[in-house]
């Protein structure tokens, strides 16, 4: 449940009726629309907001306005308001980003922003987005989000930032590129002419030129100062005396003038101003609650009419605020004149907000009143909603403001605090968890324990266990994670689908990491169902992706395919907009199609996924697109391209709770082996600390199988017996583990490798026996690439099998699939070449031999000329030659052509 959006924060302030026209500044703002960003940076009281509302009233473009406050340092809240303010331009804009925001699994800000930017780019009309009071932002995360927004700004959105200090954005760069329009204090302050126009025409004071000059000099054109001065002079006969006294004083302009203004108010109004200065926003009923009187609405209207620094926040004149400067000066007066009153006033405000359903305001005032018991009780009641709305920063900010003893006797707060902390800082989170657990198991003094929310208390032991499971899982303690997640499920009441879903998913991920795929599948499917019941639909697609992954590892390709098909159909029927996660499904489907040998269909899936763009995918899964693309390129024989894509995959990879079953560095090593780069492959095995005598674990299975490949390839080169022996022994152990875990996908690959190892050791009968077992398992699921990717040695072995009548239909199909692969060169290390040529290099070499120029080769192979030259360099190096003619001669010598 997201926290309520305050409409007053999105209100575009209307232009004031009596103002000094400032055509020069308006022109400057209009011209600024051509640039990326308009920055209005000047101290308080320089008329930034007034100028902007003037400008927008006359501007052709529609405008959205967001008044920021301290709470927006929570990046989630900031983004929620960003979406809300954009929806004032066009209903439904940012709906995709909004649904991502509400998903309980935190997404990186960048993917949310990308989703949002994509949606903005579909808006027809140009518009202006104003972020007012940006100086309240201290959180680097929000600055970064904004910098990203500016960098990737769709052309129809023009951003304006109003602030008291320069924001932490790359301003120098924007300035240097002419992408920044700026208005600063020097531009905004009233010129002597404007001061005269304001004082005499707008305020009707009839001052002399000298008096205007003196005021302008004393205030240095500071607009708030001139306004306060004008207010002090209104209705006063002796304006000359006022000007003399004011200009002759050293007192800080604000102090002097607020004093003057307050002195001219009746006592009733003066008291009202001081008492309500504790409020960020003012409404009649709220003011009544704070003052204990009943004239709040009337007083506010009178203040607005009298130009007493109240700013309306809506069209109905229900909410106002004081001009910030004025509010601060009033608050300081309240604190020095009636310091004892402030806590009472804050508490009254807190109660009003509580009864009017605005818990976070109620909490803020309770904290300001120093009434920590009240604050803690309120926080307890809104803890779940705040955390489910993913406003962790807000929640943790409240808890940091509470004294420790208040948290220590409240198990609800203790457990939620631990849960929020543990994903940021494992140690502190765990320490808090231990405190909370003591409260729960009764080892703490029971008479001190305070529980406001009994309902929440029931679920607490379960939530504590979830926190433990998360903690253990993050430390790689799989069995601990399983134990605690199980305990959570035992402890949680049936009617807590959200927490039960979270616990089941954690249990599933732990089982997956442990290699128990069937259990993992069951728990994750259960967890998804619970989350769906709890109303979280966004999880279903990413859940399907995980489930299909598990089925693939189990060798159940057809079922994986069905999961993708079902989820894709659901997603496409369900919504016109692509739901998040759809792009990932296409990537998963591409890998299944590829394994089935349909390269064209696989490419089409990847293309579709690419067209959906980044917003269609979860950013943790982005690397998978590159991995799939790399596999396709490899199947086409372009190993260099495959490697480039894996580098790219590595660049976009982010860690997530999903187990990393195919580490990218191992995928790269497999390509190196293909290229004959065995030194690099051996280095990788050494760096990863891999040995054929390692204990086996599912999470290292892919790496161990890759190690086997390194050993077999080295054996083919070095012919040292122990290499193939070690490989075979490791394979036997891997096979046993994979069979035990029913990971048929791994079993097929291991049997294929056993067959190749036996073949390399010239034990053809054993090779064929292993191959036959692999074929029997693989045929019903339609595996192709697992065999074809092994290249020429596998083709020979399959031919042999076909001759002996082993799986005749299947072997024929597999052998047919080899035809699209270059038979020679790829993977088959040539005895007299230290580093064999790749398939692509051989192709280039053949064209060189036919006398084609680099340009012609590039056209024929659809490559850039520079890429062809790169291949040439590799060919020359591998052949040990320096010229094309020499290369051709040497290749003929070696029988490569």
């Amino acid at each position, binding site marked *: 449940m997201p926290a309520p959006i305050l409409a007053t924060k999105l209100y575009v302030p209307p232009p004031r009726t009596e103002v000094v026209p400032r055509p020069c500044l308006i022109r400057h703002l209009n011209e600024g629309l051509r640039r990326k960003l308009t920055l209005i940076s000047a*101290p308080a009281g320089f008329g930034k907001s007034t100028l902007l509302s003037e400008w927008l009233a006359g501007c052709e473009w529609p405008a959205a306005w967001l008044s920021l406050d301290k709470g927006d340092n929570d990046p989630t809240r900031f983004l929620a308001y960003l979406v809300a303010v954009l929806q004032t331009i066009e209903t439904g804009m940012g709906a995709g980003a909004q649904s991502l925001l509400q998903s309980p699994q935190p997404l990186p800000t960048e993917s949310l922003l990308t989703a949002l930017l994509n949606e903005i780019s579909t808006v027809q009309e140009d518009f202006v987005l104003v972020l007012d009071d940006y100086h309240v932002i201290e959180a680097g995360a929000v600055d970064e989000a904004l910098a990203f927004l500016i960098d990737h700004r769709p052309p129809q959105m023009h951003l304006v930032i109003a602030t008291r200090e320069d924001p932490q954005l790359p301003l120098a760069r924007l300035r240097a590129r002419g992408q920044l329009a700026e208005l600063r204090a020097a531009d905004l302050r009233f010129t002597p002419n404007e001061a005269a126009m304001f004082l005499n025409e707008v305020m009707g004071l009839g001052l002399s030129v000298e008096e205007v000059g003196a005021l302008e000099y004393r205030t240095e054109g500071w607009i708030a100062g001139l306004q306060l001065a004008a207010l002090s002079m209104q209705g006063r006969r002796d304006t000359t005396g006022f000007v003399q006294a004011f200009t002759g004083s050293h007192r800080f302009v604000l102090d002097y003038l607020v004093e003057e203004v307050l002195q001219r108010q009746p006592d009733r109004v003066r008291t009202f101003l001081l008492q309500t200065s504790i409020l960020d926003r003012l409404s009649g009923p709220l003011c009544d609650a704070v003052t204990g009187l009943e004239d709040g609405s009337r007083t506010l209207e009178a203040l607005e009419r009298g130009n007493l620094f109240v700013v309306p926040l809506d069209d109905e004149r229900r909410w106002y605020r004081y001009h910030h400067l004025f509010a601060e000066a009033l608050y300081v007066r309240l604190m*020095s004149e009636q310091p004892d009153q402030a806590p009472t006033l804050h508490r009254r405000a807190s109660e009003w907000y509580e009864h009017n359903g605005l818990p976070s305001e109620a909490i803020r005032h309770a904290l300001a009143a120093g009434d920590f018991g009240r604050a803690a009780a309120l926080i307890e009641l809104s803890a779940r909603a705040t955390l489910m709305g993913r406003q962790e920063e807000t929640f943790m900010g409240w808890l940091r403001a509470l004294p420790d003893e208040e948290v220590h006797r409240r198990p609800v707060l203790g457990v939620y605090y631990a849960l929020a902390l543990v994903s940021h800082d494992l140690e502190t989170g765990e320490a808090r968890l231990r405190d909370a657990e003591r409260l729960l198991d009764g080892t703490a003094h029971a008479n001190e324990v305070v529980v406001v929310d009994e309902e929440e208390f029931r679920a607490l032991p379960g939530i504590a266990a979830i926190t433990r499971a998360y903690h253990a899982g993050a430390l790689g303690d799989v069995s601990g994670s399983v134990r605690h997640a199980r305990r959570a499920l035992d402890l949680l009441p049936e009617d807590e689908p959200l927490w039960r879903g979270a616990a089941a998913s954690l249990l599933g991920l732990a089982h997956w990491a442990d290699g128990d795929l069937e259990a993992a599948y069951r728990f994750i499917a259960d967890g998804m169902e619970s989350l769906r019941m709890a109303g979280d639909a966004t999880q279903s697609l990413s859940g399907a992706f995980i489930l299909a992954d598990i089925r693939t590892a189990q060798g159940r390709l057809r079922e994986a395919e069905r999961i993708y098909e079902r989820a894709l159909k659901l997603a496409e029927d369900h919504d016109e907009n692509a739901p998040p996660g759809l792009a990932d499904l296409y990537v998963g489907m591409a890998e299944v199609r590829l394994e089935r040998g349909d390269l064209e269909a696989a490419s089409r899936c990847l293309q579709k996924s690419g067209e959906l763009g980044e917003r269609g995918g979860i950013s943790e899964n982005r690397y998978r697109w590159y991995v799939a693309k790399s596999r396709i390129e490899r199947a086409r024989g372009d190993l260099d391209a495959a490697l480039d894509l894996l580098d790219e995959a590595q660049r976009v990879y982010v860690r997530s709770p999903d187990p990393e079953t195919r580490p990218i560095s191992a995928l790269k090593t497999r390509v190196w082996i293909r290229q004959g780069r065995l030194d690099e492959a051996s280095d990788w095995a050494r760096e990863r600390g891999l040995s054929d005598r390692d204990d086996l674990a599912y999470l290292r299975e892919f790496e161990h199988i890759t190690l086997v490949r390194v050993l077999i390839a080295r054996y083919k080169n070095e012919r040292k017996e122990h290499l193939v022996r070690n490989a075979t022994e490791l394979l036997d152990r891997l096979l046993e583990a994979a069979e035990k875990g029913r990971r048929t996908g791994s079993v097929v690959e291991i049997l294929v490798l056993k067959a190749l190892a036996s073949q390399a050791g010239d034990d053809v009968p054993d090779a064929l026996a292993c191959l036959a077992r692999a074929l029997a398992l693989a045929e019903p699921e339609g595996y192709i690439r697992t065999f074809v990717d092994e290249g020429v040695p596998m083709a020979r072995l399959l031919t042999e099998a076909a001759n002996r009548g082993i799986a005749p239909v299947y072997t024929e199909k597999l052998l047919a699939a080899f035809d699209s692969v270059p038979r020679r060169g790829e993977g088959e290390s040539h005895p007299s070449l230290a580093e064999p040529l790749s398939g692509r290099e051989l192709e280039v070499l053949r064209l060189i031999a036919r006398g084609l120029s680099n340009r012609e080769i590039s056209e024929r192979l659809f490559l850039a000329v520079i890429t062809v030259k790169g291949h040439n360099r590799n060919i020359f190096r591998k052949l040990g030659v320096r010229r094309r003619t020499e290369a051709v001669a040497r290749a003929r010598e070696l029988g490569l052509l």
Partner: protein
Amino acid sequence: MTARKRRGAMSGKSGSGTHGPNQPMVYEIRVNGHLDRRWTDWFGGMTITLEENGDTLLTGPVVDQAALYGLLRKVRDLGMPLISATRVEPP
């Protein structure tokens, strides 16, 4: 020689040596215009001294750099022209 130099530079950095790194530092913030004394609490207990030239000095202990920036932000929020912020020896 180098070692002594380095030690010298370090002791210079930490002031007279009578107060360690955990001792609060004293800062003097100069703003333009005479400020009412009632701002004392708002500025976290800084002493307000009015200078004859029309400036105000806010003097007092500052726990750390973050606290100093907090004070400067308050100066900013009042739109007060800041003239200088200096670290001084504690009285």
